[in-house]
Structure formats: C-alpha cells, structure tokens
C-alpha cells in the first residue's frame, strides 16, 4: 500500500480541482467562512477588550474568558447548536464567532492594560484627553498584542470550521469528514494537508499584516512583550 502515492494522486487528480466539490471551491468556502467569523468576532471583541483595558472595569472577565474558552469543547458546542437549531449557515456561524471572541478580548485587554504607566502619564502631561490617549498612545502601543489575539482567533476559526463539516458545513473539512466515513484514506490525508496549509498561510499572512500595522519603533519590544504576556496568561 503506497499511501504517499495515493495521496499525491488524489491531490493532483484534475477531477478534484473543478466543480462545486473541487479543491478551489472548497478552499474559497473555507476562507469565506473564516473571514466572516473572524471579522464579526473582532467587531464584537475588540471594543469590549479595549474598553476593559482602558477603564480597568471588568478585568476579571477579560482575563478569564480565554481560560473559559479553552475548557469548553468546540466539537460539543457545534453539535449541540446543530441539534437545537438544525443545520444552517447562521447557527454554525454563531458557534464559530462565539469561540473566536475570547482570545481577542483577552489579548486586547492585556495589550491596552500593559501600556506603561509613565507613557500614559506623559501623554496626559502633554495635554492629551482620554480619547486621544486611547487612539494615539494606548492602541498603537497595544497593537502587537491586539494583532496576536486576532491571529490566534483566525487560526482557531480555520480549525473549528474544519470540525463544523461534521454537521454539514462546506469547506475543506468536508474531505476530512467524508473521507473518514467512507474510509477513503487518500481523500482524508489529502484534505488534512490542505487544511494544514491553509492554517499556516493564515498565520503567516496575519503575521505580515501585523508587521505592517505595528509601528516600527515598537516592533522589537512588542514581539518580546507578546511572548511574555502569552507565557503568563494562566498565572
């Protein structure tokens, strides 16, 4: 049994590269779900995390949200929502969004909160008001962590969307779930390779975006702070 050859044949078969079940269509679907879910999650989570960081109110929630999110089994939530609401893009989307919110809230909170007190006071000493301090000082300084949160969420959404194929969602997860139930190893492994590639590309692309939006003076320090914040998150 030549698994590598079979998988390569599956991946390069022209039949698998066309039509609504083809690799390009499935990839586009997967990217679309992930973009929509991450976008909505960011639109909800960023204002919450930033507001908590700026005001300091609700800090306990912001810190514990990610830990809570980690403890809740994704697959269970997707199947439960499916049972309660039936299949549809909206129920699945709601689960994806809900699971993508915690890392963004926690990271943007830590980012804004960990802005050096002296920096904040210097901004106030220069005559900046609350809002100016937020937009011109706190957010740019917090940007590396805010982006780290969005990256974590986006990668997680790509993975969760794969699982959602179990309850009928399209995207690349179909190859994994269908292949498993048909005991079709080349399809399963081929699909898994595509999903892994999509996740890695997502991570790399968002890394590029991060490099573009983070002020150059902060780039070095920010990366360092991001590692440290991640390390201490559970402490």
């Amino acid at each position, binding site marked *: 049994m030549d698994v590598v050859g079979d998988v390569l044949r599956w991946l390069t078969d022209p039949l698998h590269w066309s039509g609504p079940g083809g690799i390009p269509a499935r990839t586009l679907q997967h990217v679309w779900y992930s973009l929509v879910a991450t976008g909505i999650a960011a639109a909800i989570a960023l204002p919450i995390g930033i507001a908590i960081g700026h005001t300091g109110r609700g800090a306990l929630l912001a810190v514990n949200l990610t830990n809570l999110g980690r403890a809740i089994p994704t697959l269970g939530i997707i199947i*439960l929502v499916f049972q309660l609401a039936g299949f549809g893009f909206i129920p699945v989307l709601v689960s994806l969004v809900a699971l993508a919110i915690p890392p963004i809230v926690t990271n943007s909170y830590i980012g804004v909160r960990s802005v050096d007190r002296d920096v904040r006071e210097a901004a106030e000493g220069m005559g900046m008001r609350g809002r100016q301090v937020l937009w011109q000082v706190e957010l740019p300084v917090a940007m590396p962590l805010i982006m780290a949160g969005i990256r974590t969420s986006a990668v997680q959404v790509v993975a969760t969307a794969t699982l959602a194929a179990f309850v009928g969602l399209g995207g690349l997860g179909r190859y*994994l779930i269908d292949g498993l139930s048909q005991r079709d190893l080349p399809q399963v492994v081929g*699909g898994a390779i595509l999903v892994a590639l999509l996740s890695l590309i997502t991570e790399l692309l968002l890394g590029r975006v991060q490099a573009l939006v983070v002020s150059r003076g902060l780039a070095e320090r920010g990366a360092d702070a991001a590692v440290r914040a*991640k*390390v201490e998150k559970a402490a």
Partner: protein
Amino acid sequence: MTDGPAPVLAAELIRWSWVGDHLDDIRGYLFQHVELTGLALLFGIVLAFPLALAAVRWPRLYGPILAFTGVLFTIPSLALFILLIPFTGLSIRTALIGLTIYTLLILVRNMVEGLRGVDRDVREAAQAMGFSATRQLFQVELPLALPVIMAGVRIATVTTIGLVTITALIGWGGLGRLFIDGFTLDFTTPIVVGIVLSAALAFAADLLLVAVQRQLTPWARSRRS
C-alpha cells in the same frame, strides 16, 4: 425523540433517566479522557524538558525550536491526527502522539521563559557556593522557574482536555464520544453531559495543579503570610 430535528424545548435539553441508565458508559469515557490527558502530558513534559534545556544552554536553538513547535501547533487538531493515520492507523498511538505534539509548544515556551527568568545574581551565588551545573539546575533554577513552568502545565492540561474530545472523530475521544452518540441518536442529553463533564474535568484539573504548585513552592506561601 428520533422523529426529525424539531426544535427541542429547554426542558428536554437533558433527560436524567438516560444519564442514570448510562452511568457505566459515562464513567468509561471519563476514565479514557483522564488516561489520554495524563499520558499526553507525561510524554509532553518528558519531551519538552530536554528541548527547553537545550534552548537555554544554546540560545540559538530557541528560535528554531519555537518555530518548529509553533508550526505543529498551528495545524488544526483534526488534520494533525489524520496526518498520523498513515503511520499509526486508528490506534491509541495516533491520539497520544497528536495530543503530545500540541502540549510541546506551550510547555517548551514556559520552561524556557521560566529558566531564563532566574535572577543572574542567584545563579552566580550558586556557582560561588560551589554547586555543580546539575545541582544548580535542580536545586536552584528549576524551583525558581516553577511558577512559570506550572502556568504552562496548567494551560497545556486544559487545552489537552479539550482536544481529547476531537479524537472522537478517529475512534477515541473520552467524553467526546458522547457528542458522537448524541449526534447519531439525534438526542441532546449525551452532548450536554459531555460538554459539562469535560469542562468540569478541565476546572478540576486546573485546581489540582494550583494545589500541587502550592505544595511545591512552600516559600511563596510563607512569604505572603
């Protein structure tokens, strides 16, 4: 109950009689869940420790080690498990290897950051007292790095408990089997039981690790009082 996906009333979310009838199954799944989590963490710690020591000893290795474990961590869990199937089939090894790989990034990063965070003066004091490198590592550096290392172990444990449920799709899964059962039976009770028990297991494990950490770092307690 199996006549179509009619909207389920809140009262029907959980049917206790089913839970009572399936206590043995649930206990078995819970046991498998604990077993998979415990073994994956054990292997993870055993593998991460030398990697972290190497990264501390030769700082040039740290970047590549983080990059490599980071790439593995980025791959969605189901895809990673499946990529192991050609090598290890649907055996328990597939689940265990995949789960162990996921713990590595978290454990290595926290071990390295913890060991690096040990005060230079403390290190020099140990050297001046004639400690050998090994003795210095085990009696000075590791105890001081313990809080950061334990933070990593806690994150890795809670993450692994969640990931174990995914292995239900390749025939294992611990409590995750209840999700598949509920899906197949078109019945919410097993799913709710699975979610609640798996989250409860994560919280219990986290509390246990906090207690272990308190036992291992008695000086942190006495300093506070």
